[in-house]
């Protein structure tokens, strides 16, 4: 991936991220989130992870966002009215996040592998879906089954929690 594209998508992604936080209207936040995730998907593609990039778009932009928007609409949520940030929370939150970033920079600086460029791939074309699928269904079978149960539990949960009283 060319650095230009990287910087463009990264900055856009972060900008959308900031927008998620700053928007008072949940709908706007949700849409910003979609934007951020689309940029992220582009970065994935740039890292030769095409399948994951596609999944990212499908699952997040396609499913999760719809879910968010759906709930926002369902509950008919309005924008936060005059609900300003609590200054103490703002300072505290910013300080904690800032400190975290500072530590992160410190870690990155002293991380020897970090300053190395990405090695070249040994193949011309990545048979990426097949490879991921192979790993997933063969080697990672057990965790995969587990995640399947997890999804089942989640759906039971959703049903249980949101079902209406049986009149």
């Amino acid at each position, binding site marked *: 991936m060319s650095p230009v594209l990287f910087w463009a998508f990264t900055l856009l992604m*972060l900008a959308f991220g900031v927008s998620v*936080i700053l928007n008072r209207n949940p709908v706007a936040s949700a849409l910003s989130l979609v934007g951020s995730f689309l940029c992220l998907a582009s970065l994935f593609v740039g890292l030769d992870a095409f399948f994951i990039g596609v999944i990212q778009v499908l699952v997040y932009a396609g499913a999760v966002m719809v879910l968010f928007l759906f709930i926002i609409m369902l509950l008919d949520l309005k924008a936060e009215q005059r609900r300003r940030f609590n200054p103490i929370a703002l300072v505290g939150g910013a300080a904690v996040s800032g400190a975290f970033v500072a530590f992160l920079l410190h870690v*990155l600086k002293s991380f020897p592998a970090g300053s*190395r*460029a990405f090695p070249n791939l040994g193949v011309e074309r990545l048979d990426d879906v097949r490879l991921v699928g192979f790993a997933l269904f063969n080697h990672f079978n057990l965790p995969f089954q587990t995640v399947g149960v997890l999804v089942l539990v989640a759906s039971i949960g959703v049903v249980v*929690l949101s079902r209406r009283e049986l009149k």
Partner: protein
Amino acid sequence: MQTLTLNHYLLASGLLFSLGFAGVMLRRNIITIFMCLELMLNAANLSLVAFSRFHVGTDGLPNYNAQVLVFFIITVAAAEVAVGLAVIVALYRARQTTHVEDLQSLKF
């Protein structure tokens, strides 16, 4: 512009993670908080994919273990969101609110 290194991606991912984290601490609307949590998980995904690409195996392929993990993370995140939103719906029905400051009856 110099060549892209692993650190570029890690930094991007870290910043996104921090943004999400800051959002969790700052926002009051539970739905927005959930969005911020999604940001954090996706930040992790970005690092993972970068690491996957970085750890090219002897066969010359990216390390797909990481991508499988990303796949799992996306699934789990979706499931979490589903359950979370269900709870929010139940909460809204019971209390007509989605704001965290209305949820302070359990304390001390």
